[in-house]
């Protein structure tokens, strides 16, 4: 063999796999999610990654549009009786599960029943439910003890836990035990055989899916799929993900690290865009069981020192397109967001006033334990600014950095801080979840969530919101609740985080409004 022929042959052998990969990738969307898919059941698990998986595989009876209003999705029709107690939902005729079985009313009833044991709004339905029945295979009737105008919103809400419709045989699984098969009727099938947890997740287009004959409107409207296959590649190292995006080895990265954005912006092939406008509300949560934050006067005292801008800049950088302040108790930009009493956070910052208020509240240099997750840079940054803010007003702060696995166990402890408990941690809540009082866990006053805040007044207002007849009435209640937040301070809102996503410009038609969605998007 001639030397030149040998070299040409070797070059072809080396290039062939890359050429083949390039051809197959035209019909494959390569996506890097924010984290690893651990559990495949979006009803049992609350993680956003599992929820995103759920939105691909499962359909929901209703879906929210970009205007945050519920619209029929699997439902063809939704009728409510004059007294508001009876909801009748008729299913679209062409719905089929991935195993080929038609979607029947009894599948929906079993799915709703399971979800209603797990989700906050679902639990509301459970409490109000008189009966759910299936008078026909394509019709569901939900009879309530009291009217609930927000039922369609709850059934179509995008925040975890979503009301995923699955076959009855799977929906009969205990709500806290994850189902082991992902059979839905959504636009994508989960390729369980190809799933490598922590590394690789594969979905293929559900060829039997019939989208609504409407334009895509976030979770409402049509869900046309333009890729045969979607691959989730879990790349825990941000530098590797950035390099892979630049090298055209992936198409779309959900959570590019703020520090790497300037590098990515430098490439003309890469777009940086805020896709999830609802973002996540940052907040500082107190432990209400132990001093000093068992005293509402101490919690109120720190408000004049809170600089939301500093928290956001530390978490996401100086680019204000990625965050929004001021932020009140409800997600900015959503219908119930308001500025009632917001001047406590928007007025001139006054650490000296905070110091005086602390002294007046009886704070005597007691140690304040702040928990910080070292493996979550955004939350770690929020905790660091919280520690600095409290130190500046004279509090004795002990910032304890640990990994997330340890933190979630530690914060569940009710013990005093000196015996392994805690005083403060910072977190973020998905914007959809904290946009309404019904699913706003930190706002609750039933001592249910971590921090164990109690407030009969907030609980009464939440109850009133469920019964609000219309949006103006709901807004009035939300304003009242927000004023109460500044008085009782169950948590401190720190700003709305809206981290952008990065994707190759070869993609177009991304459906905006919330988490990454894989319909509508196409190559070219």
């Amino acid at each position, binding site marked *: 063999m001639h030397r030149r022929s040998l070299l040409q042959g070797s070059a072809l052998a080396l290039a062939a796999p890359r050429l083949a990969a390039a051809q197959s990738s035209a019909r494959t969307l390569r996506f890097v999610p924010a984290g690893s898919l651990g559990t495949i059941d979006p009803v049992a698990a609350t993680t956003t990654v599992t929820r995103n998986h759920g939105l691909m595989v499962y359909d929901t009876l209703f879906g929210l549009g970009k205007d945050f209003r519920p619209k029929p999705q699997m439902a063809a029709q939704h009728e409510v009786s004059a007294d508001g107690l009876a909801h009748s939902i008729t299913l679209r005729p062409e719905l089929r599960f991935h195993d080929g079985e038609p979607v029947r009313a009894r599948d929906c009833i079993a799915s709703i029943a399971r979800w209603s044991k797990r989700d906050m709004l679902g639990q509301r339905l459970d409490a109000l439910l008189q009966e759910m029945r299936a008078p026909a295979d394509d019709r569901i009737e939900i009879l309530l003890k009291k009217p609930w105008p927000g039922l369609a919103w709850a059934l179509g809400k995008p925040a975890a836990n979503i009301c995923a419709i699955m076959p009855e045989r799977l929906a009969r699984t205990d709500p806290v035990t994850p189902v082991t098969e992902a059979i839905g009727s959504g636009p994508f099938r989960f390729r369980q055989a190809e799933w490598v*947890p922590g590394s690789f997740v594969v979905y293929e287009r559900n060829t039997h899916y019939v989208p609504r004959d409407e334009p895509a409107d976030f979770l409402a409207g049509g869900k046309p799929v333009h890729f045969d296959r979607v691959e989730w590649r879990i790349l825990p190292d941000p530098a590797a993900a950035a390099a892979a995006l630049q*090298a055209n080895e992936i198409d779309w990265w959900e959570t590019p690290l703020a520090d790497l954005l300037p590098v990515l912006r430098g490439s003309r092939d890469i777009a940086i865009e805020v896709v999830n406008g609802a973002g996540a509300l940052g907040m500082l949560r107190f432990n209400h069981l132990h001093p000093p934050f068992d005293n509402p006067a101490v919690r109120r005292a720190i408000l004049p020192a809170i600089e939301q801008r500093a928290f956001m800049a530390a978490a996401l950088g100086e680019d204000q397109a990625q965050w929004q302040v001021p932020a009140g108790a409800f997600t900015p930009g959503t219908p119930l967001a308001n500025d009632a009493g917001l001047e406590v956070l928007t007025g001139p910052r006054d650490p000296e006033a905070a110091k005086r208020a602390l002294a007046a509240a009886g704070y005597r240099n007691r140690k304040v334990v702040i928990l910080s997750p070292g493996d979550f840079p955004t939350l770690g940054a929020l905790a660091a600014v919280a520690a600095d803010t409290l130190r500046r007003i004279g509090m004795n702060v002990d910032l304890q950095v640990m990994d997330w696995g340890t933190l*979630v*166990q530690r914060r569940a402890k009710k013990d005093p801080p000196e015996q392994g408990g805690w005083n403060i941690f910072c977190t973020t809540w998905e914007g959809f979840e904290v946009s309404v009082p019904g699913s706003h866990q930190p706002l609750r006053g039933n001592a249910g969530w971590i921090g164990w805040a109690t407030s009969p007044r907030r609980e009464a207002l939440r109850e009133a919101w469920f019964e609000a007849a219309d949006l103006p009435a709901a807004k009035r209640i939300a304003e009242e609740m927000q004023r109460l937040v500044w008085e009782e301070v169950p948590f401190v809102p720190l700003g709305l985080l809206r981290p952008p996503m990065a994707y190759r410009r070869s993609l177009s038609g991304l459906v905006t409004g919330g988490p990454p969605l894989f319909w509508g998007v196409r190559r070219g």
Partner: protein
Amino acid sequence: MFAYIVRRVLATIPVMAIVALFVFSLLYIAPGDPAAVIAGDQATPQDVERIRESLGLDRPFLVRFGEWLFRILQGDMGVSIFTNLPVTTMIQQRIEPTLSLMVLTLCLAVSIAVPMGVVAAWKQGTWIDRAVMGFAVLGFSVPVFVVGYVLAYVFALELDWLPVQGYTAFSNGFFPWLENLILPAIALGGVYIALIARITRATMLEVLQQDYIRTARAKGAGQRSILFLHALKNAAVPIVTVIGIGVALLIGGAVVTESVFAIPGLGRLTVDAILRRDYPVIQGVILLFSFVYVLVNLAIDLLYTLFDPRIRY
């Protein structure tokens, strides 16, 4: 010899039992709660408690350990708390990339480091010797992830010769497999090459002073024959020992390398499992690593007899 092998294999049983008890106890007392991680940020303590009960994490230590040990003895490593997949399945999914990375690194390191060490000893005191020793210091000093990032930047991003990340199974062809693994293997092999090269040089220097080498020279044996036939064979025992010890280095380094190059191997599985407190997976992987290490040591002991006929078991 056969009796010796049987004895050594049997001796792994108490070793593995001690490792099992140690790992289980360590995880039991370590902070963290898989139920809280599964439940998510928004779960109430009641939710977490229900999940803990459903996973059986609320039962006493001895009961859980006894059940786990009983299952292990039947070859069942349990089920992942997070994915509900059998641990053996998860390990099977991940073993090929890690094994490939380790074997390629081992081959690369031995084929580079041994000649480097031999040449350095032969040319002792010259610039070649100093260059080899300088490389060895560099190999020890620069962390694996730094080498990894530099290689990825130069060869994948700037030159576009090789992929940045990922793994292609060997069944998809040798070249795609090699294309994905060559940079990680070089990154991981740096320390290993440095270690083997230094030991080879030191041992060879000692051997080259021996009388039989002088005799070989006096008999007119060629330089290559002296170095590789007479000297290297007699220097092999310490070199093989270091190669064996280095397997532990490779296992540790694979964790970092697999993260940098997004290789879906056992290293990443271990890290993910630790961060999420997925106890059955952590226990399974550590047991596997321990077992492999015990076997490697056994293989090294047996190899001694090949290189030094005076060694008998």
